């Protein structure tokens, strides 16, 4: 894609997003878009680890829930929105640092197992420590904030607030990817030993990446509780961690826009599927298996490749010479 086309596409997408409530009258669809944007922030945060650091976390819903629960509980205790959200972010940063210190004892599969176990601890606390978290009944968030006097109670105003946060997240991600820090993080992913030999502190780079990812995970967790005005242990469950991981993988890892596309795909699918059948987990599992088996590079590039292969197979059937499908299929 040429640079001009790329910028053109970004400008069009921004214009569409900025004017969305004008041409999409139904508040249901505006809410779905808010959902996509807030989960896109979450997916972008996880992509820092999965895509750029090569560390696959299966406990990110735990950090998401830490932010959500701290925010909701502080609001319930009577703190104002600014204090509650700031404190929630602070708590999430501390939790991310703890997650990082423990999970970085290992990399690869060990990292995945430890994050999974840590995520389950958060779920266990949310579910079992009923005197603190109200257990399965969850915690209600009675009001949405009104920053600078603008109430976010309506679907449209909340959408714009989410959009602003989303754009900020995207901007910091773009800066992060191009920064020396982003380059060194990719270095630790591809050649950890060489980075050590060059004098980089691989552990510290990964640690900072997890805290950075934790920050945006926390922000999306707060957006989530303000959007739903409710949080329950389900948010911290392994299913949620798997869902956000699916967003990252399905869109294509280590790309800036992949997680956003993935978030859109998963949120839309979840809403569409839930409207007809109750079997979301089954669908989630099947998509997981299909993507991993047939399109490990992500949904969008994978579909393009499959279509091209199909097209060439059809052409070679009709007599024209084409590359053999088995060669084309190799990644």
């Amino acid at each position, binding site marked *: 894609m040429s640079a001009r086309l790329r910028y053109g596409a970004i400008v069009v997408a921004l214009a569409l997003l900025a004017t969305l409530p004008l041409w999409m009258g139904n508040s249901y669809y505006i809410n779905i878009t808010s959902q996509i944007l807030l989960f896109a922030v979450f997916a972008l945060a996880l992509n820092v680890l999965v895509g750029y650091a090569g560390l696959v976390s299966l406990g990110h819903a735990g950090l998401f829930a830490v932010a959500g629960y701290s925010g909701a509980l502080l609001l319930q205790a009577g703190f104002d929105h600014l204090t509650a959200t700031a404190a929630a972010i602070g708590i999430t940063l501390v939790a991310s640092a703890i997650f990082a210190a423990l999970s970085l004892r*290992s990399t690869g599969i060990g990292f995945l197992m430890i994050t*999974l176990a840590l995520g*389950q601890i958060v779920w266990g*606390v949310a579910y079992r*420590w009923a005197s603190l978290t109200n257990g399965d009944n969850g915690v209600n968030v009675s009001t949405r904030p009104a920053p600078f006097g603008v109430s976010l109670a309506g679907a449209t105003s909340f959408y714009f607030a989410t959009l602003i946060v989303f754009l900020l997240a995207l901007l910091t991600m773009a800066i992060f990817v191009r920064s020396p820090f982003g380059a060194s993080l990719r270095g630790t992913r591809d050649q950890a030993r060489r980075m050590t030999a060059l004098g980089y502190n691989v552990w510290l780079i990964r640690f900072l990446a997890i805290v950075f990812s934790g920050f945006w995970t926390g922000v999306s967790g707060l957006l989530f509780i303000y959007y739903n005005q409710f949080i329950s242990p389900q948010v911290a469950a392994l299913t949620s961690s798997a869902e956000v991981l699916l967003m990252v993988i399905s869109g294509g890892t280590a790309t800036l826009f992949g997680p956003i596309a993935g978030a859109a795909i998963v949120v839309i699918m979840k809403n569409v599927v839930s409207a007809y059948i109750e079997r979301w987990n089954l669908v989630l*599992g099947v998509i*997981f298996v299909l993507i991993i088996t047939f399109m490990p590079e992500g949904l969008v590039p994978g579909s393009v490749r499959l279509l091209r292969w199909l097209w060439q197979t059809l052409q070679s059937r009709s007599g024209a010479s084409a590359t053999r499908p088995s060669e084309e299929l190799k990644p």
Partner: protein
Amino acid sequence: MMTQITSAQAAILAINSLALGGLLFLLSSGFSLIFGLMRIPNLMHGSFFMLGAYLGVTLLNRGTNFWLAAVLSGLAVACIGGVIERFLLRRLEGQVLPQVLLTLGFAFIIADICLMVWTGDPWQPSAPSELRGAVQAFGMFFPLYRLAILAVAMVIAIALWIMVDWTRLGAMIRAGVDDPPIARVVGIKVSQLFTLIFCLGAALAAFAGVIGAPYLSVYPGLDFEMLPLALIVVILGGSGSLLGTLIGSFIIGFLYNFGQAMFRDLAYVILFLPMLLVLVLRPQGLFGRNVA
């Protein structure tokens, strides 16, 4: 926050802990062997446990003998595991992450299918009639069935130990755990070992699910409750080590039961504390040799 318990309660809790430890050993030994050999944590291991338990419940409702039901559902789940390993995991050989995610996908699929077939109600089959009573010792009554679970687990533990340490197959497995490429070079069919161990692990998990059902009961969500326990046991004991798995299972069994009774709210956190300690002090696990 802490609840005091009497010594009589402690004795009962200890029996429960031993029974749970036995079940956890059956679950985790397969998990640990798969992890040691194939280098992947099988995230559907809890699902095998739950699926086995559900199949067992169905067989028991039709009047099958208890132990026969346990063995049959173990075999059935071994077949399912074998098919998934042979036709899907095998395709992704060498790609660790996709393999793990594939098992996670199947965990969700199995969970939802179980919910569809067996509904959301919990099932609790009764223990086999000859083991229903209690034995009296030291002036207290101990439920016989929980002792039986422990006994069965110990028999299987010894059988596994003999298999791994004293047979030709065991030598091949150990070779595969230590160095798969070299094992292949000397003519061991490591791929076939993978399938075999995967089936064995699945069968053990399902068997544990059935014999655990009269004690734990079967309900949706049991899979993702057991999976982290197996995970901690293996992190604690070290991957591929049967002795480590055995000791880890009993540590977790005791922590789980005593934690539930004494620190109700924090039981789940207490469960993970030894894991965190081991990770900080000895990342390869108590009995593991290489870092996971």
